[in-house]
């Protein structure tokens, strides 16, 4: 099942959560889960929203690449260079396939943050080219005086600050959709905020704090109605739900390898071929060129146009293993549907347990159907960092703070929250451990 409608995703009837035995088998593939922390306590890792852990298959793939095929990709004619290039391009095809896209619509970046900056810079570069007449620029990326850039109050800083900076570089105006008390985007704002001045609407697919799944198709349609491009931050959806990016109707989407069992240092930008073609390059240098003269250069077609310099080949190869691993978590390629079902079950159990604690306030939608794999909350009279510290003392790793979504926290009148986020390797017992830990928090700070 892919998320391509505005309604909350119906539970995929075919996909079951993992059984205890299956989770145990999954966990056995992650070496770090066997370690202990803080004086011998087993690690309970509930911070996959920040970064996921890596299965042995990913580490093996990366190592095998270095030990047998390492060379600069797209830059050599010798055998190692051929093998490295093949491995890198096979990784591109695999990651593209994982999100339903053709290989040449996927660009490797270092992380989702770079992907989003790349897109924001396309607007300022095109605007400058046009103003100065220094290069061709596609109208869709050229900002005129009075033009507006729209984000939401729910965004991670990675999908907010680049747009603020775009406005600083161009004089465009930043506007934003609000968030309702129950943690949804305030769609009533759509008519108020979007206008023919809007050139781009950038929103998240799943909030990294509230867990909210946003109505992507509806947002994309609204953006397209006013002639704006639609950019999706898919960081918290692609690792946790089956996602068909082209099917969502969006123009561009960013996500990170390290959140989906892949290595650090590799991110992704997906864009419709025609949109990528219309965008100016961002990082420039080797491997992205067509011809170079001192007087000026021309560029290769996308995706190469956006991949300057020797790329993170080993990390791309590791990510290839990661998407294969995720896909294989369910029979017949249903891995992601099962991951979704499993994580939704954990979210449900946690929401139920927290609902019993009058001194805990959960942020975001009440139901699991409208939620991804994160749950954030505040404990009455106890600062999130103190909550996290006590949990950490029990070996439980959660994230505390503003989770790079400071405006959203301000919107809810809190400085910081405690966030529990799941991966395929988390267990029901780990949910219960958090709840027990919260009782301990109350004892310490009563």
């Amino acid at each position, binding site marked *: 099942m892919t998320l391509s409608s505005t309604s909350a995703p119906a539970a995929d009837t075919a996909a079951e959560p993992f059984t205890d035995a299956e989770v145990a088998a999954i966990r056995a593939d992650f070496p770090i889960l066997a370690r202990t922390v803080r004086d011998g306590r087993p690690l309970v890792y509930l911070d996959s929203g920040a970064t996921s852990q890596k299965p042995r298959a990913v580490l093996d793939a990366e190592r095998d690449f270095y030990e047998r095929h390492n060379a600069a990709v797209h830059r050599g004619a010798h055998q190692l260079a051929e093998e490295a290039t093949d491995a890198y391009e096979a990784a591109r095809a695999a990651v593209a396939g994982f999100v339903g896209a053709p290989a040449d619509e996927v660009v490797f970046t270092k992380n989702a943050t770079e992907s989003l900056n790349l897109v924001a810079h396309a607007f300022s570069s095109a605007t400058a080219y046009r103003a100065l007449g220094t290069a061709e620029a596609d109208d869709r990326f050229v900002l005129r005086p009075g033009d507006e850039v729209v984000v939401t109050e729910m965004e991670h800083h990675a999908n907010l600050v680049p747009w603020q900076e775009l406005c600083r570089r161009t004089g465009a105006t930043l506007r934003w959709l609000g968030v309702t008390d129950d943690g949804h985007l305030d769609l009533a704002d759509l008519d108020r905020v979007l206008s023919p001045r809007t050139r781009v609407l950038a929103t998240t697919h799943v909030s990294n704090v509230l867990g909210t799944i946003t109505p992507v198709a509806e947002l994309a349609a609204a953006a397209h109605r006013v002639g704006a491009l639609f950019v999706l931050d898919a960081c918290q959806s692609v690792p946790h739900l089956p996602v068909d990016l082209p099917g969502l109707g969006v123009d561009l989407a960013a996500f990170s390898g390290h959140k989906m069992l892949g290595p650090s240092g590799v991110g992704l930008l997906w864009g419709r071929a025609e949109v990528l073609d219309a965008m100016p390059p961002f990082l420039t240098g080797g491997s992205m060129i067509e011809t170079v003269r001192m007087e000026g250069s021309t560029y290769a077609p996308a995706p190469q146009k956006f991949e300057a310099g020797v790329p993170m080949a080993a990390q791309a190869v590791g990510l290839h293993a990661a998407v294969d691993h995720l896909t294989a978590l369910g029979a017949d390629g249903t891995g992601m549907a099962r991951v979704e079902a499993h994580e939704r079950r954990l979210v449900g159990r946690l929401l139920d347990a927290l609902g019993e604690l009058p001194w805990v306030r959960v942020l975001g939608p009440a139901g699991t159907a409208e939620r991804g794999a994160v749950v954030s909350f505040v404990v009455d009279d106890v600062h999130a960092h*103190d909550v996290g510290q006590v949990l950490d003392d029990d070996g439980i790793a959660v994230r505390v703070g503003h989770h790079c979504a400071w405006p959203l926290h301000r919107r809810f009148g809190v400085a*910081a929250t405690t966030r529990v986020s799941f991966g395929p390797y988390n267990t029901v017992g780990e949910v219960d451990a958090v709840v027990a830990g919260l009782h301990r928090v109350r004892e*310490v700070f009563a």
Partner: protein
Amino acid sequence: MDLYAELILEHSKRPHGAGLRDPFDAEVHHVNPTCGDEVTLRLDLDGDTVRDVSYDALGCSISRASASVLHELVVGRSVADGLAVHTAMRAMLTSRGTDPGDEDVLGDGVALAGVSRYPARVKCALLSWMAFTDALGRASVPA
């Protein structure tokens, strides 16, 4: 859990000298970017003596306790003493568990020694101290 020594919890629940008071010679606002917590701190000098430190600390138990200890340690003492205490506090907090702190200098502050083993929390304990030193600098610059 030695981080939350009884004394720390005590200070964080009933902080000494909390609240913003008039008059003051300098007011500063500091933010801990990793968590978003903030402290507003006012300094009232009487020549070379710290007459009052008043503050509004929106933060975790460690940062609130540290502000309370700060108030206890520096009010009524000379500026030079205040800076010396800050130096000792910083040395203890950044020692990664190797400097237990001198109780003669740091008073209840030695209860914060456990913080030094949790690098992510060191900024919590230093937040009000940084604000204090900043305020000292500003107060001594003729306006």
